[in-house]
């Protein structure tokens, strides 16, 4: 922890939000209480801190819909933005929005780095956010405090790996299921085996292997031996293609025999017999072709000579010749038809014989490829058949070219068909006999199938066992990933849960302090109690808020009033801020921007006391638009003995051209000095009046003047001057002696301020310059007496028993009546040695009142 915490000395703003020309908020390393009515630019200073620390303005950059600090950060007049901070380190380091963080001294850099997480500003709009928001939004709000970026990354990574390995496991299991199906199908494992094991496969395969006399497997790794046994058996079949060839040949011969036994032969034979009978009854030979062509020729060409002899037809006219030829054709029509039919039959038979001859040739070439007993004889016989068929076909072809009865040619061919039948039958029988002598094709097929089954099963088993191993590995990884993620998630929730328990206690303590005036007993007995942030088990990144109310427990929104919810929101924020400060002690800024809008004055006072006592070692920027609360706070500062820790500022007004009117007393003094020399009388008097008012406002608090109450606490010179003058004359004689001329003069002339400044009229305008100068000089004189330009503070009564008026550094000291002035060093030693020094005791209001009571008792 740093020995002295770094603090802000001043904040300078130009061209930003509501500030056009440069404005400075002077902290002097203290806390600042800033009053300004609505719209006077208070929040601009808060926004400037937000911007310079985080690069964003929460109220702009988190609203969406195109609203951003980039767009709405610059002043409406468009002047260049400049925001800078001066720190109270040894070098009085200045850091602006354009400064490189790395160029800063270590302690300033550390401060700025911590300030990048915006957990120290609470705005009015955020007060209820902690209470009213949904659990997920509440978590988002709490997230910056928890600083879990890295944790979320790790958890997200572990979750991703868990999902990835779970997915991988599913995929591997699916592959294993496919391999299982393959094994069941290849090995034809009965359903009685519910699962596929090596034993189930071995049992199933052995039952088949035993049928073919192969030694039983003990393990699947024995399959190569079994496959070798099957190959040995298969080798006895020799070339298995012989069987196939023989079978094919026998089938071809059978088909040939069936075909050759068709009715084609009997029909042709019947036609030939009928033709022989008809031709036997004819008295002359009929040349039907000659008759047909001759008749056609005579008729078409109107010939008058005979087409055969080319002599004139003398016996009959050509038409008669044609008619006679057609009559003869009609007479022998049956004979002509039969001849035509026989001719076609013979042609078909010739083609058939040629076809058979071709097929027998192909069968013969198949048989030539295999060897068996009697092969050569059968081959010769088939060759003879083929030659015979070829000759017959040629003979028939020749017969059809002759226009004569083909009986002499045809008959041998037809007789030959019977010989063909018997030859084919004999050859077929010989081949069948040969086939019977070869091993069974079914037996070979069975062996082949079994060998295939063994091969496929063995291959599938390899894939199955490999995948099974991968599944086991994948299960292990999935299980570990799940365990890692679950463990991490559980750890995070436990740690955050415990953290919440710590914060919850502080929330309840603060909340109880804010409501102590109407609670009895301890926080755990309070009517509104046990407020708690809770990690939601079921939902990630989500936080519940619950509380107790008398006998009930639940969502505080259901029981608490709006004001109680307001103070609850503030309590949560303060508890979080305090916890965060415990983590990062070197950063102690706390900003409360107009957060007291709906709570009554008693709660506001309690809050002020909590802030001024429990957060006295923070540098606080507290803004308010409520003048009454501003006055309360100033009073409470004094009562709590922390007046020296605060700078109280008022914004007197705002306009678009210049921004907030935030006058510093010393600047006003310097300006007035110039006006006294060269300024216009009216402006001089007006400025002098404002400075006098400023002096009186300050001294009112430090001297605790009794001022008749006015609505809105809007006190003017007329209200403040008489009690101030009386108090100085009566109790602070040394000050009176020091500034008597000025005090007495102002006692006469203070109405000038109202006449000139507040109530402009022609008389005031025409007041003599010498009178106004005297007024201004008196104000300057008084200012010099009560304001220390080194401390930048007005004198205040000492909290030591001396009771003297002094500035912080002791440059201006006015002894209490009957006492000698104490120098700064003496004063320091007195403070150190005085037991019960109010400041060091961090007084609460109660203690202060007790002290005052005893003081009054002593006085009386």
């Amino acid at each position, binding site marked *: 922890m740093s020995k002295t915490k770094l603090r802000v000395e001043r904040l300078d703003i130009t061209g930003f939000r509501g500030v056009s020309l440069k404005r400075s908020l002077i902290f002097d390393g203290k806390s600042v209480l800033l009053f300004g009515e609505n719209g006077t630019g208070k929040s601009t200073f808060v926004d400037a801190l937000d911007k310079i620390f985080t690069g964003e303005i929460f109220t702009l950059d988190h609203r969406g819909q195109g609203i951003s600090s980039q767009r709405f950060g610059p002043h409406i007049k468009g002047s260049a933005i400049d925001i800078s901070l001066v720190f109270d380190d040894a070098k009085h380091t200045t850091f602006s929005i354009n400064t490189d963080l790395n160029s800063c001294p270590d302690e300033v850099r550390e401060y700025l780095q911590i300030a990048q997480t915006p957990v120290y500003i609470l705005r009015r709009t955020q007060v209820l956010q902690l209470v009213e928001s949904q659990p997920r939004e509440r978590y988002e709000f709490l997230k910056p405090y928890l600083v879990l970026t890295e944790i979320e990354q790790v958890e997200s990574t572990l979750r991703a790996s868990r999902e990835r390995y779970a997915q991988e496991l599913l995929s591997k299991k699916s592959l294993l299921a496919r391999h299982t199906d393959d094994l069941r199908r290849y090995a034809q494992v009965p359903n009685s085996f519910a699962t596929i094991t090596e034993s189930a496969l071995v049992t199933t395969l052995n039952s088949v292997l035993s049928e073919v006399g192969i030694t039983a497997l003990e393990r699947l790794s024995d399959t190569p031996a079994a496959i070798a046994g099957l190959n040995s058996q298969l080798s006895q079949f020799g070339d298995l293609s012989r069987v196939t060839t023989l079978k094919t040949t026998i089938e071809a011969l059978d088909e040939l025999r069936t075909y050759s036994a068709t009715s084609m032969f009997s029909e042709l034979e019947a036609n030939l017999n009928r033709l022989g009978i008809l031709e036997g009854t004819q008295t002359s030979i009929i040349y039907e072709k000659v008759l047909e062509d001759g008749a056609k020729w005579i008729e078409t060409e109107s010939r008058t000579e005979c087409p055969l002899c080319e002599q004139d037809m003398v016996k009959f006219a050509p038409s008669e010749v044609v008619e006679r030829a057609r009559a003869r054709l009609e007479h022998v029509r049956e004979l002509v038809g039969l001849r035509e039919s026989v001719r076609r039959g013979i042609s078909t038979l010739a083609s058939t014989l040629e076809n058979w001859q071709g097929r027998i040739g192909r069968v013969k070439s198949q048989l030539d490829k295999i060897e068996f007993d009697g092969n050569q004889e059968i081959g010769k016989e088939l060759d003879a058949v083929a030659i015979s068929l070829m000759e017959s076909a040629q003979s028939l072809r020749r017969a059809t070219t002759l226009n004569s009865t083909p009986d002499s040619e045809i008959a041998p061919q037809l007789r030959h068909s019977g010989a063909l039948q018997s030859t084919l039958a004999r050859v077929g029988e010989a081949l069948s006999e040969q086939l019977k002598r070869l091993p069974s094709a079914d037996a070979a097929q069975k062996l082949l199938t079994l060998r295939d089954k063994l091969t496929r099963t063995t291959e599938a088993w390899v894939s199955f066992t490999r995948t099974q191993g991968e599944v086991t590995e994948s299960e292990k990884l999935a299980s570990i990933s799940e365990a*890692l993620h679950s463990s991490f998630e559980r750890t995070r929730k436990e*740690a955050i849960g415990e953290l919440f328990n710590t914060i919850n206690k502080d929330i309840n303590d603060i909340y109880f302090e804010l409501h102590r005036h109407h609670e009895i007993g301890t926080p755990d007995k309070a009517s509104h109690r046990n407020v708690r942030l809770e990690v939601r088990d079921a939902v990630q990144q989500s936080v519940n808020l619950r509380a107790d109310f008398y006998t009930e427990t639940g969502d505080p929104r259901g029981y608490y009033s709006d004001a109680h919810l307001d103070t609850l929101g503030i309590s949560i924020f303060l508890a979080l801020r305090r916890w965060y400060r415990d983590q990062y002690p070197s950063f102690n800024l706390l900003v409360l921007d107009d957060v007291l809008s709906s709570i009554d004055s008693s709660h506001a006072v309690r809050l002020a006391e909590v802030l001024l006592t429990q957060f006295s070692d923070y540098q606080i920027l507290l803004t308010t638009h409520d003048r009454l609360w501003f006055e309360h706070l100033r009073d409470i500062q004094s009562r709590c003995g922390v007046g020296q820790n605060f700078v109280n500022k008022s914004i007197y007004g705002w306009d678009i051209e210049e921004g907030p009117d935030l006058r510093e007393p010393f600047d006003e003094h310097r300006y007035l000095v110039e006006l006294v020399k060269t300024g216009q009388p009216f402006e001089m008097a007006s400025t002098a009046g404002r400075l006098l008012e400023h002096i009186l406002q300050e001294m009112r608090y430090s001297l605790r003047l009794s001022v008749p109450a006015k609505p809105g606490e809007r006190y003017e010179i007329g209200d403040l001057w008489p009690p101030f003058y009386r108090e100085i004359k009566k109790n602070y004689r040394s000050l009176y002696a020091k500034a008597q001329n000025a005090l007495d003069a102002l006692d006469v002339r203070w109405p000038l301020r109202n006449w000139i400044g507040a109530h402009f009229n022609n008389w005031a305008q025409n007041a003599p310059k010498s009178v106004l100068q005297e007024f201004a000089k008196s104000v300057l004189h008084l200012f010099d007496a009560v304001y220390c330009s080194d401390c930048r503070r007005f004198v205040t009564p000492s909290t030591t028993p001396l009771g003297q008026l002094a500035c912080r550094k002791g440059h201006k000291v006015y002894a209490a009546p009957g006492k000698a002035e104490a120098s700064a060093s003496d004063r320091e030693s007195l403070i150190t040695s005085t037991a019960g020094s109010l400041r060091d005791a961090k007084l609460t209001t109660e203690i202060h009142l007790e002290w005052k009571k005893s003081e009054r008792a002593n006085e009386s």
Partner: protein
Amino acid sequence: MRAEKPLETEILNRFFRQIGADDSLPPAVVEALLRLRKEGLLTNTDRVSAAILDGANVKN
């Protein structure tokens, strides 16, 4: 950017204590974490990496 992140450190320390990273990280966990790291996961956290390596060193 900050050197200290107390809550994160507390959670990570607890986590590694829970899985035994401080003295006897189970080999299977080391293997899984190393594998995750090798595959580009868990590399965004120096402390996780360090703890893994510590665990691996313990194992070896």
